[in-house]
């Protein structure tokens, strides 16, 4: 379903080496950078061609809306109201009148142009530093017209990277579990959507319970738990072809799967006789290895980005706590020592932090700690929330939150939320149905 799409990209003009505008993303940003996203200009012939193909009145405006929305939701940028813009899009792209943009307090400006050439969509865009009156970046893309949303996301990523110095996370997808029906009999389906909630698709029909989908590093495969034929097992799904297979040949429940960072192995738990241990299976030679061997519950394993370590939660101390071990299961160390229970550890793609769920005095928290357990920081508190998943640049966490029911047991909901590593910019991610167990893909284009 996710087609590999060729996007031709070339740099129009060498990038100016001195970045004059800088956005600091390491602290909570209370003063997002004011910037203007001028609608991409489009000639009349191109506009009509795309209207026919894509059924969009003005594809130039649509793409700039995507860019604007992405930059706004990042919390780092404040896209200004288009009504205040003084310069027409086509002129602005040729040569912005910086005084005009300065007047409305824009510090950065994005302009661009859309063309219909040989049945393709060609988009060029430029990023300008308004105060310095300089071009910071200029790029052009050529792709199939249906790809127009991705072009908006790629432009957003390029702008984010140029202004913050770090990779963006907009050209990405979220796989999650769609939920419907009463709390005692939820119908759950695998669903996938763009990071901004567009292009939602269901990957399973809801005939069997499905849980905890996770992408492989290439974002083409998904591993998840399915209760197909009432036998809870870890499955592998190829998103493109739709083929599914059971992972390994275990005589009981396998669960809590994730890919290794090289995509070659699946790590998961196998429950047997009341004990749950962690196993890996090599997807090429099908060799299964037992990683932990303890009478406790060992589950929710997650690799470090270099593949050398594994973090997991275990109740071997009597209660659920977070541990780190070498990838062969040796050198097990407990790292969570705060008050309460700790679960669902996930290693940051940057390698320096582990995100987790904490339960303390009847409240659930999403937090982060360093990989040795020091520097614990709780980002958000709620009645129920869990299962953080990192954005590919390690700056944002997505998780799900459930509401308390009323006296009659009604009013239950489950929704996806995201929050910046800084603890700021908490927001709900809109989904067509209730949703849980989100997993963030890697950047689809680099």
């Amino acid at each position, binding site marked *: 379903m996710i087609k590999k799409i060729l996007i031709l990209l070339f740099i129009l003009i060498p990038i100016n080496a001195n970045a004059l505008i800088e956005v600091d993303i390491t602290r909570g940003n209370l003063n997002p950078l004011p910037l203007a996203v001028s609608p991409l200009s489009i000639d009349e012939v191109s506009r009509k061609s795309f209207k026919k193909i894509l059924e969009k009145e003005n594809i130039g405006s649509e793409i700039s809306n995507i860019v604007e929305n992405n930059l706004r939701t990042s919390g780092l940028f404040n896209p200004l109201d288009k009504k205040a813009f003084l310069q027409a899009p086509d002129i602005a792209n040729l040569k912005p009148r910086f005084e005009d943009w300065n007047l409305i307090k824009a510090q950065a400006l994005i302009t661009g142009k859309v063309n219909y050439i040989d049945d393709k969509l060609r988009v060029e865009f430029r990023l300008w530093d308004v105060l310095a009156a300089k071009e910071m970046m200029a790029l052009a893309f050529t792709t199939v017209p249906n790809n127009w949303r991705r072009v908006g996301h790629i432009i957003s990523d390029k702008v984010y990277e140029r202004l913050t110095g770090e990779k963006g996370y907009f050209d990405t997808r979220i796989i999650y579990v769609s939920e419907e029906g009463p*709390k005692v009999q939820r119908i759950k389906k695998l669903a996938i959507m763009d990071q901004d909630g567009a292009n939602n698709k269901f990957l399973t029909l809801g005939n069997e319970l499905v849980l905890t989908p996770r992408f492989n590093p290439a974002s083409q495969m998904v591993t998840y738990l399915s209760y197909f034929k009432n036998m809870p097992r870890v499955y592998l799904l190829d998103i493109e072809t739709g083929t599914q297979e059971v992972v390994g040949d275990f005589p009981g429940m396998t669960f809590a799967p994730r890919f290794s960072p090289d995509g070659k192995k699946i790590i998961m738990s196998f429950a047997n006789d*009341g004990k749950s241990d962690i196993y890996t299976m090599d997807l090429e030679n099908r060799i299964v290895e037992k990683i932990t061997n303890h009478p406790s519950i060992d589950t*929710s394993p997650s690799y470090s980005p270099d593949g050398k370590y594994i973090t997991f939660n275990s109740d071997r101390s009597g209660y659920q706590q977070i541990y780190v071990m070498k990838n062969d299961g040796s050198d097990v160390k407990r790292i969570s020592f705060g008050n309460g229970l700790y679960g669902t550890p996930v290693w940051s793609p940057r390698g320096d932090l582990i995100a987790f769920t904490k*339960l303390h005095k009847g409240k659930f928290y999403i937090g982060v700690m360093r990989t040795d357990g020091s520097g614990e920081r709780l980002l958000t508190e709620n009645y129920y929330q869990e*299962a953080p998943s990192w954005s590919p640049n390690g700056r944002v966490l997505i998780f799900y939150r459930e509401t308390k029911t009323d006296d009659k047991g009604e009013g239950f909901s489950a929704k996806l939320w995201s929050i910046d590593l800084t603890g700021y910019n908490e927001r709900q991610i809109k989904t067509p149905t209730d949703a849980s167990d989100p997993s963030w893909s890697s950047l689809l284009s680099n």
Partner: protein
Amino acid sequence: MRLNKILKNTLLVLAACLVLSACATKKEVATDIQGQMQGDVYTGTDTVKYLADGVPDRVFFATNESILTTASRETLRAQAAWLRKNPNINVVLEGHADERGTREYNLALGERRANAAKDYLMTYGISSERITVLSYGKERPVDSGSNPLAWSKNRRSVTVKAN
């Protein structure tokens, strides 16, 4: 360590009983819950079904625990007797957790609870070949409430006829 845990649990249950009885003398409102829970283990019959006359289908657990209470052992002995009388019936033990835990850990906890029930049935002569364990974690609550009584009903292992 195991024994330690059991001891600790018993103490907790005792402490909780004391707290509850203390409450009851002060307030009558608490009676309703008190009549249905001991410690935080459900002792009511609201959700219980019967495999046969006098054979309840489920047992209940304390938070985060998989230890069988005296009442649970009694229920399982009745189930074992019934299974011995009906050698052609196989069962699925469905293990469940409440909503106050992370999904993956709860899957393991449900499995551990169902296995505690399985082990007990086996010590009363039921062959492991007649028993399948199936954990639902927190996926299939019987009570959708967000309160201690609802959670206590949901922490359970249910014996279901497989054929």
